[in-house]
């Protein structure tokens, strides 16, 4: 017990919020609440800073008139103050900072994915309807064939902007969005013959043009009463062309009309404009589609046919990866957990190297090493054998596992090395006195103890490998392909690579809506498996308590 006193005493000196009072006074401090003045001060200052920042954020939100977010920010600030100022509720005091970031940056991602699963977000449905209409209108502006290039200057009179055009034949004319095009005879010109001033108007220099660019880009001056001749517009403030739209939007009926064919395109309810024949305009917008994506997820023939073998391999891959990396990591951790082993530092540093290099670089190197004809493995180690490490269905699976072991064992090695430190060294000695062998000590005492801290990590590692897109994609791309299917699916494909191929590899391009729906389905699978395993860890934990 004296030693415990000793360490408490030390604590008083080391911990920042505690004062350096002599140990004897600690007991008295307890009478009026255990916090020292210093600790309270630190807390007050920190909370004050947080509040100041929160008020600043709320001010900015107020100025930008984001009322909903402002309300949330106010609530969060109140909650934080409540947590730290009230009596009791100790767990919240310790959890709040981490949870704060967790909710903003992780929960948000999940919620966002959940929301996207109910939309058609993806290529061709990328933004709002207003954006889509604007984009279609911009793209529909075609230059009138064989129309001339006009040199252009921007003029201003009584806050209205005008464009001054110089035709190739030298004719000068002036117009604005409201004033029709009219010939000008008294214009001043620059050295290139471009008219740049008219009496009674101010000429804008380039900086002024840029400062007014939105208004200038909006100016459209009809060439004549005949709409077929188009309207003059400038995109850079110095040249103008006659454009006419190939599509006209009517806001009243919410339709686009093709000027040449007369076909009308109406909102088809699927986030696109379509004509009577079902032909769509390429640019659509994002809408909510309800459960459509989930229905597709379960009916897509690309997914259904090979699903069983892919699911089986996904589980095999994830479980085998965990077992392999953990076994090797633990074995190494134990092997080098000897104070008197010379060179252990060197071994340890070299062993974490695979973890310290960019994974995709390693992936490239590995696929080089495993090349059937030129790879080091076949050429040097196996004396010129032509073994298809990445092209044979079975060997490809083994290769993927080995490479994943290489990538993952340093992590387990580090974690186990750390966790081993929690095992009392007396264990070995006690066991030896009882005459138990090292293996038995390990098997029946050390391993169960270790698993208390490591088991949840193994579950997390399982989940990570379940979704380990990178290693598969880098090394085999999911191949070699199944020969009995026309689909782009191979024997090392796991669920997440399959999702990628299905959701991003179709003719319409990237389909984030479908991808999210599939992600949620996968999540439900992994989460169930993990939650069940997690229940088992409770038993482990209680054993040691």
């Amino acid at each position: 017990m004296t030693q415990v006193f000793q360490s408490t005493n030390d604590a008083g000196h080391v911990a920042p919020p505690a004062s350096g009072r002599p140990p004897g006074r600690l007991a008295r401090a307890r009478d009026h609440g255990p916090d020292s003045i210093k600790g309270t001060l630190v807390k007050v200052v920190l909370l004050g800073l947080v509040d100041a920042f929160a008020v600043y954020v709320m001010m900015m939100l107020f100025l930008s008139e984001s009322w909903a977010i402002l309300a949330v920010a106010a609530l969060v600030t109140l909650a934080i103050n409540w947590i730290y100022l009230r009596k009791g509720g100790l767990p919240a005091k310790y959890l709040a900072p981490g949870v704060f970031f967790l909710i903003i940056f992780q929960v948000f991602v999940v919620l966002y994915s959940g929301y996207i699963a109910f939309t058609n977000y993806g290529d061709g449905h990328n933004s709002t309807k207003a954006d889509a209409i604007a984009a279609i209108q911009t793209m529909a502006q075609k230059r009138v064939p064989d129309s001339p290039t006009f040199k252009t200057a921007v003029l201003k009179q009584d806050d209205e902007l005008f464009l001054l055009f110089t035709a190739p034949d030298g004719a000068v004319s002036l117009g604005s969005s409201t004033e029709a095009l009219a010939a000008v005879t008294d214009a001043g010109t620059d050295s290139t013959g471009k008219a740049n001033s008219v009496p009674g108007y101010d000429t804008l220099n380039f900086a002024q043009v840029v400062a007014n660019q939105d208004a200038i880009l909006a100016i459209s001056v009809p060439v004549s009463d005949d709409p077929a001749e188009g309207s003059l517009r400038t995109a850079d403030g110095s040249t103008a062309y006659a454009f006419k739209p190939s599509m006209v939007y009517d806001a009243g009926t919410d339709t686009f009309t093709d000027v040449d064919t007369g076909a009308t395109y109406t909102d088809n309810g699927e986030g696109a404009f379509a004509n009577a024949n079902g032909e769509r305009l390429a640019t659509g917008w994002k809408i909510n589609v309800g459960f459509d994506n989930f229905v597709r997820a379960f009916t897509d023939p690309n997914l259904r046919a090979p699903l069983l073998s892919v699911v089986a391999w996904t589980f095999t891959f994830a479980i085998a990866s965990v077992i392999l990396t953990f076994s090797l990591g633990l074995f190494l951790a134990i092997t080098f957990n000897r104070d008197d082993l010379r060179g252990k530092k060197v071994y340890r540093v070299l062993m974490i190297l695979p973890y310290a290099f960019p994974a995709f670089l390693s992936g490239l190197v590995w696929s080089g090493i495993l090349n059937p004809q030129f790879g080091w493995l076949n050429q040097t180690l196996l004396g010129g054998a032509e073994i298809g490490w990445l092209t044979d269905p079975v060997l490809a699976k083994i290769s993927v596992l080995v490479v994943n072991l290489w990538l993952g064992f340093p992590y387990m090695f580090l974690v186990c090395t750390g966790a081993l430190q929690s095992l009392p060294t007396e264990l070995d000695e006690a066991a030896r006195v009882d005459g138990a062998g090292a293996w038995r000590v390990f098997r029946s005492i050390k391993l169960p103890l270790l698993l208390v801290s490591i088991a949840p990590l193994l579950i997390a590692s399982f989940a990570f490998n379940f979704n380990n897109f990178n290693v598969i994609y880098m090394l085999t791309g999911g191949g070699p392909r199944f020969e009995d299917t026309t689909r782009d699916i191979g024997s090392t494909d796991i669920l997440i690579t399959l999702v990628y191929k299905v959701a991003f590899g179709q003719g319409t391009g990237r389909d984030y809506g479908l991808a999210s729906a599939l992600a949620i389905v996968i999540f439900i699978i992994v989460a169930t498996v993990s939650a069940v395993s997690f229940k088992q860890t409770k038993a482990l934990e209680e054993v040691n308590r």
Partner: protein
Amino acid sequence: MKLPNSSAMPVSRRVFTIGAFSAVTAVALSACGGGDKTSSSAPATAQDLAAGGASTITMWVDAERSPALKDIAAKFKADTGIEVKLVIKDFAAVRDDFITQVPTGKGPDLIVGPHDWVGKFVQNGVIAPVELGDKASTFSATAIKAMTFNGSNYGVPYSVENIALLRNTALLPAAVTTFDEAVAAGQGVVDAGKAKYAFLVGLDPKQGDPYHLYPLQTSMGSAVFGLTPEGGYDPKNLVLGGPEGIAFAKKLVEWGDTGSKVLNSNITGDIAKEEFKNGKSPYFLTGPWNVPDLQKAGIKLAIDPLPTAGDKPAQPFVGVNGFFISAKSANALATTEFVTNYLTTEAAQDSMFATGGRPPALKASFEKASSDPIVAAFGKIGDNGVPMPAIPEMDAVWNDWGATELDLIKGKGDPATDWPKMAATIKSKIGA
């Protein structure tokens, strides 16, 4: 287990005081900050540019173009006071990042990329058309054709690229015209013990490489898409699976693992380059991007026209790199000015060629660059080429196309059934 609470009552009041004090300071600070914003816009000057957020143009660029654009960006800044901020992005993700970021208004004003992104960009409404006017005629016809989508021009081209047949003149002094002749000549060198491979072309062991094999395919009369009356690719008319395609598929088996082994799927692009660099083969089917390294290694190169496997001309895919303007650029006018009046100049295109080494799209710059016979030869071959399809449907083609070619090269599968099956799969994916 319950622990006593840390904060006693008297403390909480102090917290409030201090908190409130800091809050007041913050209010005061932010009030000062807010004051600047309300200042009314006086006569337009360079300061106005800054106030309106128009003092910079953000441009996403790849690492190679970045130094080449520095000079022209500096000139633009000197002329107009507007800074062009060059942001180097990862090429693999840049297209999709652009598509996601533009609608939020936070994307860049300008992006550099190959023309086959245009279809995707248009589909998502993220780029605006650019009218080049009379300047269009100063660019090579191929470049302008590639940048044209649905009848409008969407980008300012700066380089045109295509593959060609590289020959190591130390091993083979004379050029041939057909693929069979090339292989025979190459085999002669191998038989003489001077080389290891008759012919090299880099293939991806995972996905094959339809891009590099396309000239052989076109020389047998097979293409991917048919053309619309306006001359663009027609996504509804996938001609890949036709009888010419099947004939080409049969050839792939002949050239592959179970045949003459001219095409070897174990030889990646990197390996092919390495072996050619070491003089292990007289021929290498590749693009201009590998030329500088090969010259540096001392290989004497000749650029031969693409070999034919059939009676039609061997047409490579031509890739045109260019600049595209965001549809939601907050600084659209200045960006257009920079793109149409600065990047189209001879000086700009010259300097981009000098740094990046890619054949310029501007005719005048290309003429100058053509003093290098290699550039001239690549350009001549490119004149026969066809633009890489920019329609979004092309995305769905690559995967199945490559995988099927790979299987055939490996001798797995029957060309007569697999090739049409591939075409049917692609058709179902693009809904053609």
